């Protein structure tokens, strides 16, 4: 590859192809969103049910563009100290102790209190400089020369205050550290925010982002995804198992199986040397797909019809 990093984001089709090369099966919508995000320099807010590959998209982008991925996992109580930057207090303290004597020497020449103070103020910036700055994911992402993918995961789990902190980062790609000044990203990172809709996000945040909704994939795309992850699976089995999972998602259950669970199931079936789906096999491996006992019981009576439908469709 002659081009690297952001330069490869030349067209929507190039993005689809690039993502496919690292094993992420994209859709028209996803690629369009990435293309726009890059060209308009806007963050993307991705919403959708759990397990449809929101986080994976960011990781795949980083791999495809061969740049670093900076991930910030949000949770309740997350503050700027954990997300933006922190002072290395311990180190500062240690240095003050170590430099105490040295300071004494420097101060030695000062006859009066005023003179000592003047001397001291000339060293003031020493302890509040970038040496003692501990960058957290947001700041790290700003500092990459080659650009980076900044993933702010599950933003809906953070507090509203934190959302407000993010606004500066997201709209101007800069971080203000009161003691030092404003640190601006030389190459703006590609920012991806994900949300599971635990709470409604603020309008201010939504306004600044492009919005992408990823839903459970169509049968065809899901087949392609499983194929990419589990290359050994036979065509017949692949089609059957994806059809089965798709049927399962239409049922009234607490947690619908995600893509990663389909992939796990495909691996399981492969391990058991299954060539095609039969009812018994499905029953014994259902716990890979469904993680709630009540769900397994709820689909119990539907397993036979679903398995048959999937088996006969081929």
């Amino acid at each position: 590859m002659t081009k690297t990093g952001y330069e490869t984001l030349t067209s929507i089709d190039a993005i689809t192809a690039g993502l496919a090369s690292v094993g992420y099966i994209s859709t028209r919508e996803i690629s369009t969103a990435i293309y726009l995000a890059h060209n308009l320099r806007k963050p993307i807010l991705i919403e959708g049910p759990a397990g449809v590959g929101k986080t994976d998209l960011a990781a795949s982008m980083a791999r495809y563009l061969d740049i670093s991925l900076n991930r910030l996992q949000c949770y309740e109580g997350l503050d700027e100290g954990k997300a933006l930057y922190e002072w290395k207090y311990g180190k500062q303290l240690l240095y003050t102790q170590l430099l105490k004597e040295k300071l004494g020497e420097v101060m030695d020449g000062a006859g009066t209190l005023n003179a000592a103070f003047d001397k001291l103020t000339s060293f003031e910036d020493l302890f509040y400089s970038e040496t003692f700055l501990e960058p957290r994911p947001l700041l790290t992402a700003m500092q990459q020369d080659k650009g980076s993918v900044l993933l702010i995961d599950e933003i809906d789990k953070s507090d509203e205050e934190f959302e407000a902190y993010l606004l500066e980062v997201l709209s101007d790609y800069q971080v203000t550290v009161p003691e030092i000044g404003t640190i601006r990203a030389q190459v703006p990172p590609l920012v991806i925010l994900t949300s599971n809709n635990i709470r409604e996000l603020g309008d201010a945040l939504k306004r600044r982002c492009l919005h992408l909704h990823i839903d459970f994939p169509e049968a065809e795309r899901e087949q392609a995804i499983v194929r990419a992850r589990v290359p050994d699976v036979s065509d017949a089995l692949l089609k059957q198992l994806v059809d089965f999972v798709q049927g399962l998602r239409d049922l009234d259950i607490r947690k619908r199986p995600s893509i990663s669970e389909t992939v796990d199931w495909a691996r399981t079936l492969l391990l058991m040397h299954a060539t095609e789906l039969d009812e018994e096999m499905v029953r014994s491996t259902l716990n890979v797909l469904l993680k709630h006992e009540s769900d397994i019981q709820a689909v119990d009576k539907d397993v036979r019809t679903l398995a048959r439908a999937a088996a006969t469709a081929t």
Partner: protein
Amino acid sequence: MAEQVLTDFIRALRSADVRVSTGEAIDAAEAVKLIGYADRQRLLDTLRCVLAKSPTEKEAHDRLFDLYFSRQPVPQSEPPAQEDSSESSSEGEGPGDLLDLLENGDETAIAMAMERAGQEAGLQEIRFSTQVSYYAQQMMKSLGIERLEGEMMQAFRERTEDGQAYAEELIEGRKEMFSRAREHAKQAFETYGAGATLAFREDVLAETALTALDVRDLGRMQVLVQKIAKRLAVKHSRRRRKKNRGQLDVRKTLRANAGFDGVPFDLAWKQTKRDRAKIVAVCDVSGSVARVVRFFLMLLYSLNEVVPDIESFAFSGRLEDVGDTLATDDFAAAMDKIINSIGMSSTDYGQSLSDLKMNHWNTLDRRTTLIVLGDGRSNYGDPRLDLFREAAGRVKRVIWLTPEGESLWGSGDSELPRYRPHCHTMKQVTTIKDLERILDEALSRYQ
């Protein structure tokens, strides 16, 4: 031209309740500059990514996109050549003159003329379906209907066979043109006006007395209730911890800074925890109150996102716990069942209060808001004020809602004035707006 297309589309979106800020409009313009109008599918993907920010907004966006871009001539980057040719082919004084259009009968020219006439008539301003005819008339006027009519009268006046036939032809043409203009205006209404009409209807509905609602409004009401619930949820789902910046939490500070030799770098402030909201609803489901109760409970149960603890009891003669019955998907059916099974006996507030005391007294605690919904008409039975006073003492707040106006309180068998001193608030509720206000106020107490 291209900008105009986008601006009009954004207007249409706004009328359909999709919030588009100026910033987003600028983003959209830039995105379109990047993508171009050539590929329709790509344009759709782009605009829905930039402009629509939730699943419902995306749905509205897709619907409008189809409506809007199905009729818009796709603007090209070079000046549209065909428009010029159609202009030059006509006699110069107005390319879209009806007569010329009728004579030439060119499909694209007619569509183009309609578009222009629509713009001249200010079709983007259309809000109600009743305006369709009016706007169609306006469009005909700007298309030059007068000249056509003049020609027609002229032909009639000639009193020749040919003239007669020509006039008939013109009448036919006029009819056809008018129906096309109507069609055009109707489509514009669906694009720009339908959303606004819906919003208007909802506003009216929110102010209508619940007891006066039509059966056919019930479905729409459910949508409205959901909207209100969402609004309340957004407002009250703020975080539950509140930092009390003024007071230092000494113990926590010391603990946090043990690693720094006790030098307090990180200061920890005292925090106050907000109570989780808990609502106990006691509802009279007899007679006239039942209607209001239905919507009150519907709203309450739509709120379970913010209020995790809801207990609901229904009574007329005796009181029963209806929480389990209501915790199903089919709310309306559950409500009917409750009203039919419990609401049939004669109302007895005293008996119901003592049922509450006997079986459910533990549900009332200091973080509870007790909401009673009823007219307080107890058929001259003992109102058991002692029990009500005791209940009021146990809970955080007592709110009494009644469908009757204040002038009726205390008339006949109404015991409201006697219950009143023990309530923090006693209010008349008639509309869904009233219910929203009350719940808003009740939830605000949990700050």
